[in-house]
């Protein structure tokens, strides 16, 4: 049974990965990636890492991939298929990928590690459970855990900087780019996020505020 699941999931994972690269339509690429991630989740299940498998499905195949689908749908690009840039790259890329593939195969097949040919490391009760993972995060990997959270914060800041550049650097001077003040953070404007905002009723009030703001410092 385990062998059947392994081969089905492996073929799914490889097929999905090939599909991500080979498919011309970005939307199909994202769907292939979803298939790839689901197959990986099945492989994690085989390794008795139930929590990682569930997280893989919920976080990656669920949340992150939905985001990808939204982005692809929002930006479009289905009508403009991705092209490779030139014959040099088209030749060199598969060459290097092939070299890496051979290298990794050598590493895996040529390895003298005993566990590779056997049933693998023995299974310990509680391995990979949420409790154990949480414990590792708070003990042995406390520092990496904290660094990772700071990394996510700073990546979000960077994304905001890059996304902000699209908006109107050409049409308005930089001085006019509205800046949020600390006071604004604590003073939630009434009506934000409601139908009134999308209907443009908040717009008039904002413009009034803007005029006042320019007067003061």
């Amino acid at each position, binding site marked *: 049974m385990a062998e059947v699941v392994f081969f089905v999931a492996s073929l799914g994972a490889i097929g999905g990965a090939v599909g991500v690269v080979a498919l011309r339509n970005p939307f199909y690429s994202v769907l292939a990636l979803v298939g790839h991630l689901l197959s990986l989740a099945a492989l994690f299940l085989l390794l008795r890492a139930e929590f990682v498998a569930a997280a893989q499905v919920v976080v990656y195949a669920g949340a992150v991939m939905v985001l990808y689908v939204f982005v692809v749908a929002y930006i479009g690009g289905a009508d403009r298929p991705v092209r490779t840039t030139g014959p040099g790259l088209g030749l060199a890329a598969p060459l290097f990928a092939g070299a890496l593939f051979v290298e990794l195969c050598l590493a895996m097949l040529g390895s003298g590690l005993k566990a590779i040919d056997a049933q693998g490391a023995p299974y310990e009760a509680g391995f990979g459970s949420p409790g154990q993972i949480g414990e590792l995060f*708070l*003990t042995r990997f406390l520092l990496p855990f904290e660094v990772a959270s*700071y990394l996510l914060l700073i990546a979000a*800041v960077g994304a905001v*900087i890059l996304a902000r550049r699209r908006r109107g650097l050409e049409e308005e001077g930089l001085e006019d780019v509205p800046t949020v*003040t600390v006071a604004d953070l604590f003073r939630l404007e009434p009506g934000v996020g409601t139908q009134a905002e999308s209907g443009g009723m908040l717009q008039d009030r904002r413009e009034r505020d803007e005029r006042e703001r320019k007067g003061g410092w």
Partner: protein
Amino acid sequence: MTPEAPHIDWAGLSPIVALTAGGIVVLAAGLFRGAWLRRYGVPLLTLLTLGATAGLSIWQWGEDKAIVSRALAVDDLAMFLNLLFCAGAIAAVVLALRDSSPEESGHGEWHALLISSVLGMTVLASAQNLVVVFLGFELLSIPLYVMCATNLRRSKSLESGLKYLIVGSVGSATLLYGLAMIYGATGATGFEQIATALSSQAGLIDDPLTLTGIGLIVVGFCFKVSAAPFHQWTPDVYEGAPTPVTAFMAVATKAAAFGAFVRLFDVALIDAATNWSPLLAAVAVASIVVGNVGALTQTSLKRLLAWSSIAQAGYMLAAVVVADREGVEALAFYLAVYLVMNLAAFAVIVARERETPFGDDIRSLAGLGASRPALAWPMTLAMLSLAGIPATAGFIGKFTLIGATVDGGYTWLGVAIVVGSMLSLYYYLRVVAAMWLSDVPVPAAREPVPAIAGGSPELDAAADPEDGAGQDAGPDRPVSQAEATAVAVLFGAATLFFGILPSPLFDLARDAGSALGLL
């Protein structure tokens, strides 16, 4: 059984705590309403943070401990590198005071990214665990990718950021693959456990899994230190990025990556040295050749320094190959020297970019010796030092590097360094010649330098258009660059000082070199 929370040595962690807190404060300070506060308050807070980090690192000098579940090492090598990161970042903040990139991307965000990058370097340089290595690597890189693209009005800046992101991600992925292989082979993520596994289990050193892991890690690090043949991104990224960012990236990233390189290879993988040293030696020689040959024909100063940095990465890799205490000492010393001479050169480029219409082209330096000796001398010293002329810090640095390679049994690598330096004289001296031997070019747009800017920072400040003087300059370019000149003079003087009196720096490097416990 209730899990025991690890003991946290707050004193040892203090430089990292200072950087984290400072980054958050600076990010929030970017929301100040007053433009003046944002423009000068945020850099001031950033300088305070970096100064505090440097101070705490000095306070922790002489300690030798592993903190937070042995994830980080607090030793003299880490603290030495911390000081280098802070020096590079402080110079970048000062050079960026009047740059357009913080203005366009938001002062708070720009400086918070800079501090985060320093934090990543600090984590990377003291990492003692494969997981921490990778996270430090990413925390260093991701802010830099964004900072390269912060000159929002130039498409070259975006191109630089995008290229760095893509190539850097390939490097990160390769590194991660390699780290996973090493974990798979040894079953451990901590450096000491890896070293124990490699030394105790027979045949593990020559196992294909270990070898592949080492190979992939070398590739990942070589991307970051821009060693050939993984260097192709360097000239484009250096040229496109805002010059203060380039200056920081050139000196600090290299120090961080070499710090992690030497700790990982000389501590965790030291028993496999017979396998990786020929590989690294080949990469070092390739870098020396490619970097020096590539720089010969460059006319853009930033590209020239990029190619020169590839060659310098080759010189420094030679010190990693040696894998003994003398090698680490020479590497630490050279990293400091490299920082000093490159910052002097980049400060001059920043000043001339704003003063002349030629950007970072070599023409922007023409006639500098007569018109702005305060800029010409630091640049001259930096170029002579990069080439390794006696009485400059670069000579002492190369001398120790070559000494370490010869003592370590790699005399031919020392010969490669000498030959590379001879080649490099051609392009470094070309820059010097442009400053002292050629006349001021006829500018396309306007006079490059008013006669009043004789060189001293006081005079330059007096000629500042914001004070009403120096009206003959273009409307958008301030004429004098007092702060860039000050940075150039400071680091130019340091280049000369450490060239004549290297012992203070050498003592620090010796402490740093003995931190890893090598023979």
